[in-house]
Structure formats: C-alpha cells, structure tokens
C-alpha cells in the first residue's frame, strides 16, 4: 500500500517543490533588483564599469546582430514574395517585412543573441567567481558585489539593447528591401510605399519597449543564476544551462504578453 501512497503524494510533492523553487527565484530576483536600484540611487555604481559592460554587451554583439537581422529581413521578404505572387500586390511585401521585423523578429532575435552571447557569459563568469570564492573575497574586503558586478551588467543591458534592436530594425528592413528587389524585382519606391501603408509610429515605440524589457530581463536572470552557483566546474555548467533555459522562456513568455498589453 505504501507504493500507492507514494503514487498519490508524489505529484503534489513535485508541484510543491516547483512552487518552492519558483518562489525562491522570484524572491532572489526581487532582492537583486531592489539592491541594484539602491546601489544606483546611492551613486555606488561606477560609470566606467557600466561603459565597459555596455561595450561588451552592445558593440561586441553587433556582428552577430547584423547577421541575424539581415537573415530575418531576407527570409521574411522571400516568404512574402512566394505567398503574394499572383494574388496580392507585391508592394505589400514592404509592409509585411517592416511589421514582422520591427514588431517581432528584431527584438526577439536580438534577445536570443543577447542570451547566447551575453547572458550565458555573465552566468558562467559570476558562477566561476562564486565557486572560486572571489565573491566571498569581495564581501571579505568590505565590498558589495551588487554595485561592483551586478548593477553595471544590468544597466548596460538596458542601455545597449534598445540601440541593438534599433540597429537590427534598420538592417532587417534594408535586407528585406534588397532581397525583394533581387528576387521578385520589387523597386525601392514600391517597397517603401508598402512599408508606409500600414505604418504606425507606435510600432517603433513598441519595438523599443520590448528591447528595454528584454535588455533588463536577460542580465537580471543571468546575474541571479550566476550568484546562485554552487559546486565547482560542474555547478557552473549546470547553472549556465539553467540560466539560458530560464532566460529563453522568460523572453518568449514576455513576448507573448506584449501584444495584448500594448497592441490593443
């Protein structure tokens, strides 16, 4: 009968453990955000550290963002060309490319690039510092790792991400326009006519709002997971993997929440 008891109890235990873990992460992230805000408000964060991180997050991500934005523009343009041939006016491609890139592809793909390039690095870096006692050393030296390590990374994400997304919007748009010209012979004038047809200024604001949100979420989760790391090299690997999964899910869930909140 004991196995029957275990069978009945185990789903509840699993659910309970999941809730406990979620609550711990939520609490940890809330504390991290609060302490970061306090560090910023009290002027403990060095501008030089923020600039260094912004360079690593922004400038060093440009090549990969260029590639993803270019390809997303080309793919959207070509798929629209294929679907519209013979039935819908081709200049509508301009509208489809613009809306797809600005509203969805540029912010989300840039966030994915940020997760892979920056988020994973932050978790691994802070995780290694944690398991090699460098974080303890900071505390022992009377220094707080939040203003020294966490805050510059979070602020850099918030600053760099809208710039990267704005850049990706432009690159994706141009790539789509060039691809439409080369594949279906759609002229620049016609493409721009289509792009203007369904354009709302709000779309750009929406895109940049997504960028700021993702630019905040990715470093916050990666710093939180990095500081939670325990257990040597294996622990660093485990927390980096968990962090990447956590960041991807968080970005996609937030992406799904944006349209009902800001596009209605």
């Amino acid at each position, binding site marked *: 009968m004991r196995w029957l008891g275990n069978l009945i109890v185990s789903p509840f235990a699993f659910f309970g453990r999941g809730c406990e873990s979620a609550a711990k992460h939520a609490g940890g992230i809330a504390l991290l955000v609060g302490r970061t805000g306090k560090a910023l408000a009290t002027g403990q964060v060095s501008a030089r550290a923020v600039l260094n991180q912004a360079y690593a997050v922004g400038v060093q991500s440009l090549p990969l963002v260029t590639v993803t934005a270019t390809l997303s523009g080309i793919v959207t343009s070509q798929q629209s060309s294929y679907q519209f041939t013979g039935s819908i006016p081709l200049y509508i491609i301009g509208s489809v490319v613009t809306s797809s890139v600005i509203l969805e592809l540029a912010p989300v793909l840039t966030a994915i690039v940020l997760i892979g390039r920056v988020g994973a690095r932050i978790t691994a870096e802070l995780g*290694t510092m944690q398991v090699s*006692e*460098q974080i*303890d*050393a900071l*505390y022992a030296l*009377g*220094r707080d790792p939040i203003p020294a390590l966490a805050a510059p990374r979070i602020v850099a994400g918030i600053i760099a991400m809208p710039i990267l997304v704005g850049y990706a919007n432009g690159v994706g748009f141009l790539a789509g326009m060039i691809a439409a010209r080369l594949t279906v012979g759609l002229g620049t004038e016609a493409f721009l006519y289509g792009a203007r047809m369904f354009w709302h200024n709000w779309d750009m604001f929406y895109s940049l709002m997504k960028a700021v949100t993702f630019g905040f979420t990715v470093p916050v989760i990666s710093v939180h997971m990095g500081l939670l790391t325990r257990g040597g090299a294996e622990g660093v690997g485990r927390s980096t993997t968990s962090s990447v999964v956590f960041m991807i899910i968080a970005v996609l869930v937030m992406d799904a929440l944006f349209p009902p909140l800001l596009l209605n």
Partner: protein
Amino acid sequence: MATDALPTTPMIEYRDVHKTFDLPVLSGVDLTVADGETLAIVGPSGTGKSVLLKTTIGLIVPDRGDVIVDGQSVYGSGPSVLAEVRRKVGYVFQNAALFDSMTVHENLLQGLPDALQKSLGRKEALRRVCAALEGVNLEPGHVLNKFPGELSGGMRKRVGLARTIVGEPRIILYDEPVTGLDPVNSAAVERLIRRIRERMGVTSLVVTHDIEGALGYCDRIALLDRGKLAFVGTPAEFRRSHTPMVMAFADRTAAANFSVRMLDDESHGGPSESWQNGVENAPDA
C-alpha cells in the same frame, strides 16, 4: 614562539556556534582567541574548520550562536557593525581568490577602501601596494601589472596575502594557506605568517592541515572533530596529549593506525567509544 600563557584580552569569541547544511557541520563551538594570539585550527577534512572561519565575518551565517569580534557582536547587531568588523578582519582564501579580470595592482587596490584610496591619492596608494608586495617577498616591478593567471600557485597565495595586509587589518584569518604548495613555498608562507604577526601585531587564526608547520608558529592549537572542539591547548600540550585523535594528528604513524581503526569501526556500524570520547582540554570545560 609557543607560549603557555592563557589568553588575556579576547579578540574573537565564538559562542555556541551551530551550523547545519545537509548534516550538522558545527555543533556548539565555543572558542576564544586572544588579542595578538596566533591560533591554529586543525582537524579532519569536512569537520567545519573553514565554515567556522567564515562565520567570523558573516560569509556563512550560523544557525545558532554568535561571534564577538573586538567586543562587537557580528550577528546581534546590524549591517553597519558587520561592515566595521570586515574592515578589521583580513581573510586569506584557500586558493587566494584573486580577481581574474584584474591585474595584481588592481587586486591589491581592492584591499584599500575607496574612501581611503581617495584620501591617500594615487601615489601613496601605489606605495602601499608596493610595500605590501615587498612584505610578502614579491618584487612589485615584476608582478604589479600581471594577471593572476600569469602567476604560479605560490605567488598567487602571496599576492592574496598582500591584498589582505595592504588594508592593515587587526585580525587575519588564514584558510589553509599552504595547501597545494610544495615544501619550500609552504615554509615561505609559514615564515610570512610569523613575520606579519611580529610586524603588525595581528591576531591570527589559521586553518591548516600542516600540523608540524603550525606547531612551529602558533601559540595555541585547536582540534575540530565532527563540528566540536576535541582539543585546545599549547603546542607542548598538543604533543603530550594522549587523546587518540590528537595523537593521530601529531604523529604520522599513529595517524596511519588511527585511520585503520576508524575505517574498521565505520565498517562495523560506527565509530568506537574509545575515540569518540577521547576529548581533553576541551574549551570552557
């Protein structure tokens, strides 16, 4: 170096310190370290020596009990007291814990509080950094602009020590300072511990596995076993002790015999009374 004099003015007091992770690690440790004293803590691996050291400055928070540093309660007061305690205490980590992304110069500057750096100015701060490096027998010109990854294990330990002393602490906690070093480097680090104590008059607490080395420079030695103090006394008392555990630590042959007995006992359902109860000179007894 070793003296039979009992501790006078207390600098660090551990009062009934308990800590449990998955299993109990510290089970009611009471220990007093006097001002200017050098106390070595020895014991088998995993018995809570480093955990005890970390409770001194709040790197690990005990489940119960308190630590009093220079008259200030670490856990009975607010964060400002903890910050003040951390300014008084220097901590030398087992693997030096140098910041990989910083040069030796930048690492050592972390040992000087920002406000002090500002008041000293760049030149004076650099002079102090160089003096600290010279104090641990390192040539500043050779190491100042190097990254920790470019240094040998012994040099990293010494830079870690320099980072601790540059802030001129009153207390230094050493977490296995000679672990992983060859005998020559171990002897050099032990000489430095002695010299720093003589020059700066600091109170030192040294967690180590190197009993012979520790007996040469410490005033008292404490043996921690399964979260409890099994012995506290002078090096002479340690050598004279008939407690099996102490004898095992004081003598390699006895250690070999003791480990065989211990394994034998464990394979027959747990440790025997003979070494469980062999506690003498227990503190506050």
